[in-house]
């Protein structure tokens, strides 16, 4: 009880401090400033996203180009989480023999025919939607992360509907490695050709064309593939952990 009071006290202090300090940044106030003569980063991005990069979605422009280095790190975080997860939940041969067989034990209840047929129809549609989202990442809301996550939910649907649905690990490893490498290589191309890592090519097309923004759509497609494979890997590893028998 004393602990709870102490915790509540601590939290209240933190909360009040936060509230007070965010009062200095009133809600809805325009802090971006003049876009034509940018003094803040946001104004600079809003100016150069359509003018220089010809990318309609300026969030995409920031994520992939202006702050692309963050995104490379972020993809790496996801990759490392998948690796860490695999190392934490790695199953040794002995464990598997002890627990009998190595078939994935995912769903104890058999799903109904309706669900299974529905999943079969939905799965390609979800994949298509995911691909659409990351291909149009520079034009409309969405992009590599969103598309990748959508594709992963498609695989999730298959995992929970079909007991024996398994992803092809060989293809996954190839896709995962190659898409990650492609991202790095595109970055290195910028370093070699224009002297700065991840620098975009000068040709950026016309605003709101499907092929515009220079390398941005290409990078976002690779990010999409990478994120989709990593998330599916995470789900696969977690789904295949077998509950302990009594």
């Amino acid at each position, binding site marked *: 009880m004393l602990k709870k009071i102490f915790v509540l006290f601590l939290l209240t202090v933190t909360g009040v401090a936060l509230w007070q300090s965010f009062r200095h940044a009133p809600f809805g106030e325009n802090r971006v400033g003049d876009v034509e003569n940018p003094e803040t980063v946001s104004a600079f991005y809003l100016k150069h996203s359509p003018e220089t990069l010809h990318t309609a979605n300026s969030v*995409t422009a920031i994520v992939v180009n202006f702050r692309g280095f963050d995104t490379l790190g972020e993809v790496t975080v996801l990759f490392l989480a998948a690796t860490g997860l695999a190392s934490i939940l790695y199953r040794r041969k002995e464990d598997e023999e002890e627990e009998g067989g190595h078939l994935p034990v995912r769903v*104890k209840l*058999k799903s109904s025919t309706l669900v299974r047929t529905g999943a079969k129809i939905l799965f390609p549609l979800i994949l298509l939607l995911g691909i659409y989202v990351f291909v149009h990442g520079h034009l409309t809301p969405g992009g590599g992360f969103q598309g990748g*996550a959508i594709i*992963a939910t498609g695989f999730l649907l298959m995992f929970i509907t079909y007991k024996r649905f398994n992803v092809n690990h060989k293809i996954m490893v190839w896709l995962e490695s190659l898409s990650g490498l492609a991202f790095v290589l595109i970055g290195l191309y910028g370093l070699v050709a224009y002297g700065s890592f991840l620098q975009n090519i000068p040709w950026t097309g016309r605003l709101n064309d499907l092929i515009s923004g220079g390398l941005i759509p290409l990078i976002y497609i690779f990010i999409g593939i990478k994120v989709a494979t990593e998330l599916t890997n995470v789900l696969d590893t977690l789904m295949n952990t077998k*509950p302990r028998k009594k």
Partner: protein
Amino acid sequence: MIFIVFLVIMAVILIAAAVYSVVQKDLLYAVLGTGVVSLVLSVFFYLLQAPDVAITEAAIGIALTTIIFIITIRNTTRDEDKYSEDLINRFKPEEDA
């Protein structure tokens, strides 16, 4: 007016869902509560003119996070006060066709 009412209702649902998922003893429902938090949050993001974030939160927060929580509950216990009961015996295993 209708929008501000809508927004306030959203805010109330958000907080209620968060409190529910902290207070609820049945962890499965608690996890569904966090799913609701994510769902309302993504509506919030949409209203705050952040469609990119809304889509991300919808795909990752609602679907993937919830499912990995459920997998974990399946591997541990479902009742918050019973730390070592096995949930798995509640389901009878069946063979796949």
